[in-house]
């Protein structure tokens, strides 16, 4: 996953404010949290920044599939063990007779479910990282030994 500094290094660093942000650093932060698009930086679209633009696009590629909360599930790393399904506090609260006790989810309110041996996330609006009263929850990242779940 790219860092803000890596993205900033590739931007024009002129603080021209054409994108609407006050500095290029602020634009880099917005880029990483997917609030802004590279095309909103007009100077970088000019010929002299072509290489930097391509590098930026390749750096931001892994974040393209992220959910609204910034969650990315890497299917190639996931073993389908279901630790996240059982550990997620939202799943426990919404499905006390299923996911909470280690069994298969019994309703559609759960966030995580395992399909074809890989975990997929749904009901993302229920996630504790979403909405007004969001908290920095790590319940699904901590029990995953392969690092298949990530937040950007």
């Amino acid at each position, binding site marked *: 996953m790219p860092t803000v500094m890596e993205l900033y290094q590739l931007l024009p660093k002129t603080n021209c404010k054409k994108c609407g942000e006050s500095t290029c650093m602020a634009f880099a932060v917005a880029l990483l949290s997917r609030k802004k698009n590279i095309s909103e930086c007009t100077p970088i679209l000019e010929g002299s920044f072509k290489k930097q633009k391509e590098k930026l696009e390749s750096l931001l590629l892994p974040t393209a599939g992220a959910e609204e909360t910034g969650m990315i599930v890497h299917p190639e790393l*996931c*073993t*389908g*063990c*279901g*630790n996240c*399904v*059982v*550990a997620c506090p939202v799943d*426990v609260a919404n499905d006390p007779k299923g996911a*909470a*006790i*280690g*069994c*298969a*989810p019994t309703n559609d309110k759960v966030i995580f*479910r*395992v*399909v*074809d*041996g*890989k975990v997929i996330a749904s009901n993302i609006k229920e996630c504790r990282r979403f909405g007004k009263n969001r908290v920095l929850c790590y319940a699904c990242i901590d*029990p995953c*030994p*392969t690092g298949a779940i990530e937040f950007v």
Partner: protein
Amino acid sequence: MVTCTGCALLCEDIDAVVENNRIKETRNACRRGAAKFRGCKNRLTPSVNKKQTDVDASIKKAAELLKTAKSPMLFGWSNSTCEAQAKGIQAAKKLNAIIDDTSSFCQGILIEKVLRKKFRTCSLEDIRNQADVLVYWGSDAQDSEPRHLSRFSYFPRGEARQRGYEEDRTAIAIDVRESNTAKICKGHFYRIPLKGDRELILALTDALSGKVPAYDTKRILELANILKKAEFGVIFAGIGLTYSIKDELDILVALTDRLSNFHILPMVGHYNMRGFNENLFKETGFVNRVRFDGKAVHDNKYAIVEALRQKAIDALLVVGSDPLSSLPRSVLPHLAAIPVICIDPCVTLTSKIATVTIPAAVSGVESGGSAVRMDGRVIELSKVVENNYLSDAEILARMMEGA
């Protein structure tokens, strides 16, 4: 809901979506289980002397080979249903053959102790509802039985453990490397040197009886304290631990005797290895390495590795196993020199050198039956898709009609 035969957990909560008699999607199964439901890439075809034939001809040839052999051996069984295993044991009796399974170089010695009631053990449901201290010793449950931690041991909330892994449970990993299970146990990972299990058990026994342990005093006293305070503890004995102390398993039993609330559960890999051990134990009083010769004789020379090393067998029937890829290289020349009959759903290394190959149905997907979970509970397997492949039990029954 169907049962998964990916590992010895036999998860019964799998949702398989079948379309046009094919499994389109599996839900809740881990990657290992999902792969089992997807089936094999290269399906085995019936053959005799590497020439394609039909199933009847290959079964007939197999029966003939076993009948004419002076000292045949029937091996495999851990990936077969209990019904097929029972047929196999009957066949061994009829043929005066040696019968052995993969537990011979796996958890056999520990399961024998369980069946002889040498130590306390418990069911996986007991663990989910009550266990508070879990020791993964020489076992990487996270990789070998992927749903072990999420379904039964560490993460779920149980009747007496309502706060689950966050507050109510402590997971400890003892291993020679930082496995994926150890990564989950984080602060409670005890790395030991190769074959260091014996020293650790003795040091823990010392610590529990009030003596100062011989090495790493602080960490071992800390571990002993956690074990002592457990209300319901479980040692998940993996193959790492069993291999390391196989000649002196009694020191592990002595350790659990000191801890009044501790149980031992052997971690089994193949889905029905414990089933074979239980079936043979009921029949003969031994769990593996048996020769029928009027009566059942148990000896270490009847283990697959020893029998091949001493060139004591002249025909081998392999059911649902791949000895060519799992046995030591030094004993393999004899495997290539004798007629091998391979019953398997998929092409394996062994099937490539086999004299006779007989394709079988994938149990739990294409044929039903029953199997024994790692804790001894009998679980029914369901037939999910219909096809013409014969189950292991049917193949063995037809083979014995001809023998």
